[in-house]
């Protein structure tokens, strides 16, 4: 398989895998946050903050994969 064909196959796969991973991570985080708020409603503020930080970090990784896709997609077909 040619280098460019491999790149064309691997780039969307990489972004897809990153999206699946971050989706699973966010799902777990939100589920746990809901459970924690249900158990201790008075700690909602702290749980929300931790949830926001976690969500931002998870989303940043997906954006990282997307930017790598954009950087390398210029090399396909050139």
């Amino acid at each position: 398989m040619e280098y460019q064909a491999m790149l064309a196959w691997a780039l969307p796969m990489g972004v897809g895998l990153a999206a699946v991973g971050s989706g699973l991570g966010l799902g777990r985080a939100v589920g746990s946050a809901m459970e924690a708020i249900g158990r201790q409603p008075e700690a909602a503020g702290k749980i929300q903050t931790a949830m926001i930080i976690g969500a931002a970090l998870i989303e940043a990784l997906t954006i990282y994969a997307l930017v790598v896709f954009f950087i390398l997609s210029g090399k396909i077909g050139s």
Partner: protein
Amino acid sequence: MGLEFIHRTLRTTGIVLLILFPFFLYYFGVWKALALFSGGVWGMLNLWFITLTVRAAIRPEGVDKPRTIALLLFKFPLLYVSGYFLLKISLFQPLWLLAGAFATVVIMILKALGRVLLHLDMDSTESRAKTSGVA
């Protein structure tokens, strides 16, 4: 560590970006400095929308449906499409945009690290025991 941590992170990121902008303008040129600044502003907006969405959707009183739907309708089409256009503009290099977008994350991690090292999130008794050397 409450929600004011997020607000402080956003404020610090804005200040850092404003301080860095003239230096990047001088040393790297207009487009790289603008790319870094735009990426940083995009990252700040993204964190702000995540904060608003989490506060509207995950709370003890239940989901604030109209607010959550409005936020999601604004965040996904508008913010992500604007990010897409920033990436597609050939004048902006994606790496500089990425560096700007990661400024928020870096500042958040440094602030959290500072809080851990200074024991700012401990109870007062726990903190006193730590500083006096009593386990």
